[in-house]
């Protein structure tokens, strides 16, 4: 194997990343670390000193911590369903993949139409005679309900991404392994835990990394359902960049998002490490 080959293969992607990401990114990173032309941490101090920063940070992490594990479970379930189906597999996979094509803005719109006071949920409940008059679900005092609504929307919107990656990964697991497990008397659950999951690690890793990173950037759905009640890092980034016009502080927020994303990526890589020798 020529030693240059891997670098040659990386060249096009690297060129893209350098030109269209690293270059603008370094300018923004410099923005976050300078104040009126001099190196300084003042932007980070202003960010951290703002009374909303703590809750913003907490909300973002909490949302990711609740959504991602649920999503992983759901995606695994959906992928297993697809792989177990004998008939209508294509149709079911397509249905499961539908939310992929829906932008977060549109998803926020639909789910707001469900939860708002004059929405579908209230219509259904009154129609069934369960309540007399429409309930208020998204009021500012009921942050728990708002949070739940956001979690549901995110589950609906973004599980498909993980599901498709896992389906593709499951397709590569040779069925002999499962059959071998059958011979040794493994139950369906044991087979899933001991055979499928470990062999799925590379795909799991990919799905988790991509999903976690995007979870730290939630924005449109939170804004649509939560209004100003659940500020998240991304909405504050927007706010400082465009409303407050403090690009330095906005850049500092962006660096925080980047920081926690990189941190969690490292964690996932560690936890789901597949040694080279264990690969097929």
């Amino acid at each position, binding site marked *: 194997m020529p030693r240059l080959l*891997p*670098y040659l*293969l*990386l060249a*096009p*992607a690297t*060129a*893209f*990343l350098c030109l*269209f*990401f*690293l270059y*603008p*990114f370094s300018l923004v990173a410099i923005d976050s670390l300078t104040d009126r032309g001099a190196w300084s941490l003042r932007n980070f101090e202003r960010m951290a000193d703002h009374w909303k920063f703590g809750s913003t940070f907490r909300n973002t992490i909490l949302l990711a911590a609740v959504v991602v594990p649920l999503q992983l479970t759901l995606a695994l379930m959906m992928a297993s*369903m697809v792989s177990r189906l004998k008939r209508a597999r*294509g149709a*079911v*996979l*397509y*249905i*499961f*993949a*539908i939310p*992929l*094509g*829906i*932008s977060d*803005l*549109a*998803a926020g*719109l*639909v*789910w707001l139409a469900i939860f708002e006071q*004059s929405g579908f949920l209230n*219509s259904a409940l*009154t*129609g069934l005679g369960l309540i007399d008059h429409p309930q208020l679900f998204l009021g500012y005092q009921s942050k728990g309900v708002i949070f739940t609504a956001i979690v549901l929307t995110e589950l*609906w919107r973004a599980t498909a991404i993980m599901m*498709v*990656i896992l*389906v*593709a990964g499951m*397709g*590569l697991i040779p*069925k002999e392994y499962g059959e071998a497990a059958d011979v040794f008397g493994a139950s369906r659950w044991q087979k899933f835990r001991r055979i499928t999951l470990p062999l799925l690690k*590379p795909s799991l890793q*990919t799905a988790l990394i*991509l999903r976690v*990173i995007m979870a*730290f950037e939630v924005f449109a759905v939170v804004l649509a359902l939560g209004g100003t009640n659940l500020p998240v890092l*991304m909405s504050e*980034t927007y706010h400082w960049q465009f409303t407050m016009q403090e*690009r330095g502080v*906005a850049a500092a927020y*962006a660096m925080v998002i980047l920081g926690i*994303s*990189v941190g969690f*990526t490292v964690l996932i890589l560690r936890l789901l490490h597949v040694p*080279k020798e264990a690969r*097929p």
Partner: protein
Amino acid sequence: MSETTVRHAGNRVFIAAVVLTCIWVLLPIYLLAINALSAPAEVTGFPKRFWPSFDLASIQFFLGFRGVTSALWNSVQVAALTMVMAIGAGAPAGYAIARFDFPGKQVFRFMVVMTRAFPLPLLALPLAVLFIRVGLDDTVIGLAFVHTTLALPFAVLITYSLFSGIPYELEEAALTLGCNRVQAFWKVVMPLAAPGIAASAVFAFVVSWNEVFAAAVLTIEHRTLTAFLLQSLDVSPLPLKFAGGAALVVPALIFIFAVRKYLFAMWGIANR
């Protein structure tokens, strides 16, 4: 209970679970359709109806909107270019990470992930300045470059996980049967990686299709449909919001439908 009845019951539970999951996915789409296909007074009224009245006024408003067709065409072009470039640049990189150990591999992986982890709206300003200076501003290809950068992490990581699931031995067999490296890749690895490639294609398409911010800043004459509609959607009256939202969803669904069989291409064949 005999074993067959247990299996029957298990099957029934399984089918019920599949059906329920399908309903969970489809119901919100159906509600969107109801609102898009109903008269304005029904969209804002209470209680809501659960059956559309097929009043197409809102949808027709969008179809008659000046510039919708050219915006749609721009969107398709940008998304298609993004797809081709994301796979073209991403799959080789994913392959390199899966197959080889080399210095700089971890750095590259991190860089790829970072691209997705940094808020794009902040990058839009330096990018726009760059594009205006080099003449890429307001071009389909320029926007496709940015969207490709956004889609690359998907393409690289997904193809990586797929390639590392394909035994290297198959490639070696091809090498001993008269292939060079490139041929071995195209004839043996590529067909096996089809689901991963299709998944990256779907992501690249969808990322590009739904991206608003860069599109709004970087295109003027060549606005994409999303920049054209979605931007102003959340300030528009409710019935139009839903009609516009539905108008954006439909092409994406058609695309996913078109590639769905590739997502499945190698199912059950990949035994060895």
